[in-house]
């Protein structure tokens, strides 16, 4: 029996926890996370408010749960969006080669040259800050990353003899890309996606922290942190909880990505 790497197991458990909580928050949270009760602010943990209440008397655990959903959604949409565009571009560049490849890769370089945070700030300045813009900004920074990964792996696959064989069989590049290239770069892309997912969670937190992400009343770990940072002296747990949530989620996806990489590493596969 293959033994799964420890980082994969820990990562999977943490991810399952975070995703599970996020999913649960869709149907149930202990309280409405947006319910204010200003008179009951800074409430201690009780059987009603398990982690106590925040500076506006909202239930903290409900907010953390709702924020998990927010975080997961942003990361998922951003990585899917940026990932699919990036992968499509990378595959295109790899399949066509020549000047198309050059242009796509130069564009990717340009994407790297433009500081991501600045892009988010400007996007927010033009269209006003919103979760959508945060998603777009994070998706945007993902495009060149995935384009590079996809192109590099696809270029490798294109040199494999089975691809040559498919060409010898008379398959066109589109079909080859679908039948051979995509499945064979999938592992690399999925590993990258897991890692970018972790990065996206961090990015969403940072943008919300700067006020460029989730808008009230939507709950967000980053925003909770920014609202709580001056409360560090008063109610440190308000800053500790969302911070720990971010760490847990990012760590989970990071370890999962690590684990997946270990599992899909061809050298290790062959050894097993």
């Amino acid at each position: 029996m293959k033994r799964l790497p420890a980082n994969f197991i820990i990562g999977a458990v943490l991810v399952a926890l975070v995703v599970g909580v996020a999913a649960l928050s869709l149907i149930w949270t202990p309280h409405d996370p947006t319910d204010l009760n200003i008179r009951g602010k800074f409430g201690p943990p009780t059987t009603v408010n398990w982690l106590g209440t925040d500076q506006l008397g909202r239930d903290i655990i409900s907010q953390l749960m709702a924020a998990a959903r927010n975080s997961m959604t942003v990361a998922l949409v951003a990585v899917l969006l940026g990932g699919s565009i990036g992968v499509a571009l990378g595959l295109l560049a790899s399949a066509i080669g020549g000047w198309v490849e050059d242009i796509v890769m130069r564009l990717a370089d340009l994407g790297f040259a433009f500081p991501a945070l600045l892009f988010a700030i400007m996007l927010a300045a033009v269209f006003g800050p919103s979760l959508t813009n945060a998603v777009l900004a994070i998706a945007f920074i993902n495009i060149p990353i995935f384009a590079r990964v996809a192109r590099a792996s696809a270029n490798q696959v294109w040199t494999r003899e089975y691809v040559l064989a498919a060409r010898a069989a008379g398959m066109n590049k589109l079909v080859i890309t679908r039948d051979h290239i995509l499945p064979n770069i999938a592992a690399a892309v999925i590993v990258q996606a897991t890692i970018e997912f972790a990065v996206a969670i961090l990015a969403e937190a940072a943008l919300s922290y700067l006020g460029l992400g989730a808008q009230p009343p939507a709950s967000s770990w980053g925003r909770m942190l920014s609202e709580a940072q001056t409360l560090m002296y008063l109610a440190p747990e308000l800053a500790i909880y969302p911070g720990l949530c971010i760490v847990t989620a990012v760590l989970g996806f990071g370890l999962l990505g690590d684990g997946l990489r270990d599992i899909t590493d061809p050298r290790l596969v062959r050894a097993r």
Partner: protein
Amino acid sequence: ADLVIGMQQEPTSLDPTSDATASIDGMMTQNVYESLTIVSENGEVGPNLATAWDVSEDGLTYTFTLTDAAQFHDGTAFDSEDVLFSFNRAMAEDSVNPSKGIFKPIESVTAPDARTVQIKLKNKDAFFLFNMGQGDSAIVAAESVDTNNATPVGTGPFKFDSWTRGDRLTLVKNPDHRDAASVALDKVTYRFISDPAAATAAMMAEELDAFPGFPAPELLEQFEADPRFRVNLGSTEGEVILAMNNAKPPFDNIEVRRAVSTAINRDEIIDGAMYGKATPIGSFYPPHGKAYVDLTGAYPTDTAKAKEMFEAAGVAGSTMTLRVPPFPYATRSAEIIQAQLADAGIDAKVENVEWGFWIDEIYKKQNYDMTIIAHTSPNDMGNFARGPKYFYGYDDPKMTALWESISTEADADKRDMLLKEGQQYLSDQAVHGFLFQLPLLGVFRNEIKGYWSSAPVLYTPLKGVSKG
């Protein structure tokens, strides 16, 4: 003694006559620069570069007598030529004075001799002497005016020493000032710390002596409990309002506006957003003002009634935007107001927007339903008389006429009566949701004495401040 003061807003220029940034006035006006008059902590106008003045019978001609003991920091003399220069510059066609409006009533400025300046007005202006004490009407010298933005030269009790942009600005005592004897501080350093958490840390780590405009009301109790510090709760001229776009449905309907006023709960807002550290207002006038009327009871909070009123007006369940500028008082209030409106059946979409965006979309284009903003200028009830082009979208001949009589009424008691009438009228019309007066929250090391506790104007003179 040396003093280190924390400032949240970083200035971009040091010339108050060409830039409206409040921190420029905060540091420079009446410290480095001086004006003809000066406004005291309780809002009264007193002599400054002008030691005395005469007002003609008709209230249109002001004759100022200038001090002969003042000189600019670069050594050049101060006389009526400098006053003429400063006024002509502010009033010129290509003037970029941020409060050019306060010079509008002026017909002419003349200098009969080196120690006398005569100003003729086109019409009576009740706030003229008050305005002459602002940073916008600081007296500058022709020799140094072009470099004032980076190396300010004035006549004040403090001289500019150095400025590391983004970090600190240092002033030193001007030993040649006519009143140098009453200046206790030798050196004043302003440190620019915009992040509230960083401000707190800097204060706690005793990097700073004072943070007069402390950005985190939630921590005041903490500082109060700390024997090292003293907390000051003062007031500013800033009325915080929930502005509604009166030009656009549904807020062109007075019943909807009244419903909003009924839906909001000021105590909750002040408690939640300002940690109880603010005074509620029921209209557009500061509670510390002489003419203040308490109208906070005009629309007692009644969610059920508000709901009915919204239903009656046919807007219940509708969605509108609440576009909020990036100031903590605004973003925090927005969250609570949003919840209160939601209870009353209105779905307010909060959008925290950037300041540039706010200026463009809300202020210039009036593209908004609701917003939250503090009006920090003194004597600014005139905003309601600025017509439909102003972002309120409020156009009411009755209010325009009322303001006209207020601003030309020379008699203080009569003016106060009119101001009370104005407050009443605005409350009755429920033009906006009137929330609270923006407090001036300061944290000081115990040994700091003499700092203004309230700010009727944008500046706080350091002349009377001492340490230890």
